[in-house]
């Protein structure tokens, strides 16, 4: 069985810059494994997630998600792969305003290979599973907590191989943050997806069976843990 995520000799630097912003010599994550990715502000955590999602081009290296070289795919094929295999959760949720909760989830299904006939039912089912019982309400009319639940349901919609969560609890109070992280992890477990979560919050560390620091990932020999 292929690893959910396998990174080899990944490097990214901005044009004209002297040093890499991101450098990961080796990182492999099993299917269903939950990993907390830590690092100082500006260390490149978000950039690494964008590189994994294929939204940015690395300067070098290979990123494989569910056995597929993400950057070996181009154009619409990569977009389709991302839509099907990678779920993303953001600090500010990035929900589509003007659309209902169900439509936000259905939007993720729209760009996947999931049968169109089942989109609405699957969206409502997922929302119910995360505790959203008003699927037809416009997302801006939902509470912050409800909005995050919609974002979690959307990330899980296509049963991706991996969910990338970028500081998902940064704007929440500690109690809500803990419940929110529990929801993300429970949802990922329910669909068998691996989870890579970045967070500044040290209290989140205990929730993860594996914790990685971006600084440490620069040394491949030390962190090969497959």
């Amino acid at each position, binding site marked *: 069985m292929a690893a959910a995520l396998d990174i080899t000799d990944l490097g990214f630097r901005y044009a004209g810059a002297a040093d890499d912003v991101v450098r990961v010599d080796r990182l492999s994550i099993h299917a269903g494994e939950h990993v907390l990715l830590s690092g100082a502000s500006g260390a490149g955590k978000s950039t690494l997630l964008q590189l994994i999602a294929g*939204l940015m081009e690395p300067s070098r290296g290979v990123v494989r998600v569910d056995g597929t070289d993400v950057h070996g795919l181009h154009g619409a094929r990569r*977009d389709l792969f991302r*839509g099907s295999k990678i779920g993303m959760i953001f600090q*500010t949720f*990035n929900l*589509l305003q003007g659309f209902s909760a169900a439509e936000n989830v259905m*939007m993720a299904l729209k*760009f*996947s290979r999931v049968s169109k006939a089942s989109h609405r039912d699957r969206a409502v089912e997922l929302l119910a599973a995360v505790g959203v019982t008003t699927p037809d309400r416009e997302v801006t009319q939902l509470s912050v907590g409800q909005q995050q639940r919609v974002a979690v349901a959307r990330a899980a919609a296509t049963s991706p191989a991996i969910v990338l969560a970028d500081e998902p609890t940064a704007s929440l109070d500690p109690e809500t943050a803990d419940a929110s992280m529990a929801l993300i992890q429970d949802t990922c477990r329910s669909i068998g997806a691996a989870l890579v979560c970045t967070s500044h919050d040290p209290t989140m560390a205990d929730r993860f069976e594996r914790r990685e620091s971006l600084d440490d990932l620069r040394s491949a020999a030390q962190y090969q843990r497959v």
Partner: protein
Amino acid sequence: MAISDLTIIRRSLSARLFSTVTTVITVAVAVALMLTLLSMRDSGKAAFERGTGNMHLLISRDSSSLVSVLNGVFYADPPARSIDAAKLGELRNTYQPAFSYFIPTQQGDSYRGMPVLATTEEFFSRFSPDPDFNPDDPESDGEPWQLADGEFFDAPFEVVFGSAAAKETGVRVGDTIFVVHGTEVSRKAADSALQFSPHVHKDFEYRVVGILEPTGSSHDRALFTDLTSSWIIHAHDRRQAEDPTITQTTVSDLTAADALVTGIYGRVATRAGSSVSAAIPAILSQLRADQSITVAQPKEEIDTLFEIVGSIDQILIAMAAAVMVSSGIAIMLALYNSMEQRRRQVAILRVLGCSRGRVVALVLTESALLGLFGALVGLAGAFIGSQVVASALKAQVGLVVEPLFDPTLTLAVGAAAVLLGASAGLAPAILAYRTPVARNLRPIG
């Protein structure tokens, strides 16, 4: 059930409803203007051609052929010079055998601003505003005059009203009227120059015997009576000037000098099923050799007139095209501005698996839809607008203009609006294509 691209576009348009509505209105105004101009241009010419009807030639003593037609058919002004009885007789003797009809007319009087055309009964039996009516062919497609009420005149001092004239003056069959010397146009000019007061032919009462059905021609605004009545009332004026004690004038008092006409409607005899004759050029040439008269081919004069106003027409159409291009720019600006606000939405769609190509297609479809909505609203606007203009023309000048929407031309204008809309979406689409996903997903603030 899944979310369609159209749902995404619909939400995008409704999210900025004001901008959407104003953009659609801008396109609609341009399309409506363009279609109205095009439809009224063709139908306006058709309305003018209906005025000249089935006549081939108009003989008068006006200064030019065009003036002759404008005065003799469209009642622009009473002809200034008359053809006397001797000349009329000479023309009749020479040409009438070749003609299907040779109808003398006289203008110069009016009733409440409506021109009075004195003529013969043949005006109703032979001449028709319908160019397809051939009086010598019972199988002819065209329509002769139709009465809405009453009958055509067959005695002196009987008058028949055109439909618009009857409607405007409110007269009915059986009413009596007095006509005024001069017409509205000539009287206004005289009023301002000479403090002229209208001269009413109060000694002669006309009885309304018929009201015509609308024909869509200039004749709808006119009144029709027989030539003898007109000669008598003017002979009466002449006789009273010579002897103020005279109170009555009859046919027996008419002299050759009283029997004046201002125009002759002529139609050359044609074969059944044909509205033209090979003899027309020769007759025309022969008539034009006579320097004492002006001979006009009304249809040719209308063509000439429309060639003259055609340049104005083209300027108006160019202006409408400019408005249309402006509306394209409005679409572009509306989408471009909204795209600045929608970069995050584009970034989210990209994260969810939407390809760059699909984002471009969404933006282009959205802009094309703005063009399409504008075209549809514009078409409705053009239809309503042209009806309003047609009603105004009918009410103001009695000209019945039926707006003609050429399906091909209408479709072409609509397609142009959609194409313009799609083209206007190119720049915003490129902006959407280039939207950097990572940067636009960052928390705001």
